[in-house]
């Protein structure tokens, strides 16, 4: 028993000592916390840090963003990270993705401004109307991507919706897509899954149903399987319309989604303006004016990327090859 008590105190002491040793020097301190390790979130985190570097060069200030935290998709870890950065006395916390933002909002409790990044639906996530919370939203312009679908093939009869039930992100865009397609009198076939293998099966079922096109919103679960299912869609000559450029880099056809590097940049700018005493405003929706097209898929489908010229700036990418 003695051993335990002494061990306990040593642990306490160590944690306390370390907390004291970290005194903030001049300049600003930021904590970037992503919910889990994921390609899109990594891209945003990198863009945020890069922009902080640019700002410190430009304005001659020091912005210490340390290392980017990952919550490993575990709420308790996120909470511990939150309490740690709060004690570190950071000027702003920048959480990426919904659960991270919710946890940081709770942990900060008004002490530290929270500038979230990439939350598709801040209202539903309960992150609006809190005076120390703002950020950027990657809400997908569902109407635009549907219009793009009809531009490519005006005679679409059947559209498959592929998404997961475990993503708050997906719901709003899926509802929007359903409303749009119903209005057009197009048959809708839904397929959902929650794990890699279920997504693959869902995709196969859509191919078997002979859909003319497939739509997936900013859904992280589908994104994780995109590389495998993209090949199947390409073989079946079915274009996959998606919610983010990371999908397209993994082999989907096209997106009008948000460019996550742009989003990260905007988030960093917002965080900087709040650090330097700016007001906490409403969250900003990043416009989805960037059309990212995969030329590999274009070739196999026999569609020219120029077909999307009316919709915005076109960025051509090819599937990443490992």
């Amino acid at each position, binding site marked *: 028993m003695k051993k335990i008590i002494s061990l306990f105190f040593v642990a306490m002491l160590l*944690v306390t000592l370390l907390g004291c040793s970290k005194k903030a020097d001049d300049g600003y301190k930021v904590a970037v916390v992503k919910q889990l390790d994921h390609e899109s979130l990594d891209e945003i985190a990198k863009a945020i840090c890069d922009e902080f570097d640019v700002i410190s060069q430009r304005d001659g200030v020091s912005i210490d963003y340390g290392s980017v935290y990952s919550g490993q998709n575990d709420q308790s870890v996120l909470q*511990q990270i939150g309490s*740690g950065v709060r004690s570190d006395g950071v000027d702003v916390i920048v959480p990426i993705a919904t659960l991270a933002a*919710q946890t940081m909002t709770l942990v900060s409790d008004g002490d530290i401004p929270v500038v979230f990044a990439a939350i598709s639906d801040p209202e539903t*996530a*309960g992150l609006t109307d809190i005076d120390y919370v703002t950020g950027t939203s990657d809400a997908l312009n569902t109407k635009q991507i549907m219009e793009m679908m009809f531009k490519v093939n005006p005679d679409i009869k059947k559209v498959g919706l592929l998404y997961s*039930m475990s993503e708050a992100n997906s719901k709003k865009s899926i509802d929007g897509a359903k409303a749009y397609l119903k209005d057009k009198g197009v048959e809708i076939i839904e397929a959902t899954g929650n794990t890699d293998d279920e997504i693959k099966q869902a995709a196969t079922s859509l191919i078997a149903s002979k859909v003319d096109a497939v739509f997936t919103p900013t859904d992280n679960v589908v994104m994780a399987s995109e590389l495998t299912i993209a090949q199947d869609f390409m073989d079946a000559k079915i274009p996959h319309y998606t919610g983010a450029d990371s999908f397209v880099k993994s082999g989907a056809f096209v997106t009008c989604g948000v460019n996550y590097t742009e989003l990260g940049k905007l988030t960093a700018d917002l965080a900087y303006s709040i650090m330097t005493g700016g007001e906490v405003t409403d969250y900003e929706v990043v416009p989805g004016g960037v059309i990212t097209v995969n030329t590999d898929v274009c070739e196999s489908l026999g569609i020219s990327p120029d077909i999307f010229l009316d919709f915005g700036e076109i960025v051509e990418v090819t599937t990443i090859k490992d």
Partner: protein
Amino acid sequence: MSYIIETALELACVYSFVTLALFLSFRILDIADLTTDGCFVLGMCVSIVCTLNNHPLLGILLGMASGGLAGLVTALLQTKLGVPSILAGIITNTALYTINLMVMGFSSNISILRNKTIFNGNKLILLILIVIVVMILLRYFLSTRLGLSIRATGDNIDMVAASSINPKACILIGLVMSNMLTGLGGALAGQLQKSADINAGNGIVTIGLATLIIGETLINGKKSITRNIIACLIGNIIYRLVYAFILQTHIIPIECLKLMTALIITLAIALPYLKDRKKALC
């Protein structure tokens, strides 16, 4: 600074219910019950949905009850349908994914950032109170006639049957109680964190087992039931403090947290074994 320790202790209290649950199923009943992950989220969802409708206290009670129901399903699968115990837990856990989505109205994440929870005053003191009360009740229960029968079932099921006690009933009651504890943990975690997420239970069973073993190793918990119950809380406190330490010092890159968890568990299990061997060699 105190804030880090406060958070660590809060989390330790909440997750010690999961450890207590695993103590009951894994140690006392000697059953690997994998219902835990889904059951934790079930308690969380029920508690959050009730809180959303302004009944936080009811949420805690119903969260606990719903956990018990999940345990009942696992137990019935085992005792009535002859499903092996590990599979029974996995089956229930899989089913719970959908059930949990249903509870949250087919949304994967609910936030109650603006609602009142049971944590009005000092969260930590309330949590410690609940943990201690639950630990005392559990200790008392394990000394009752029923509690002793459950302990005997885990030790020697044939002897229990020969003593004309129904071992299946003991397993059933044990699993229901164990999952009630998990559900209670989930319900408290949900209100503490003010949100429920469908993925919140991922890996809870690993943390539960880790903390159970850490506690047992450090205070020689297997010596008596009382010690073992206290070890559940101690294990959690140590685990969370170690985590806080790592997060603060960055002595291990943050990307390697999970590897660290595995290392902590391995060390905790291996230490007593190595100590014994060293003694045997001398």
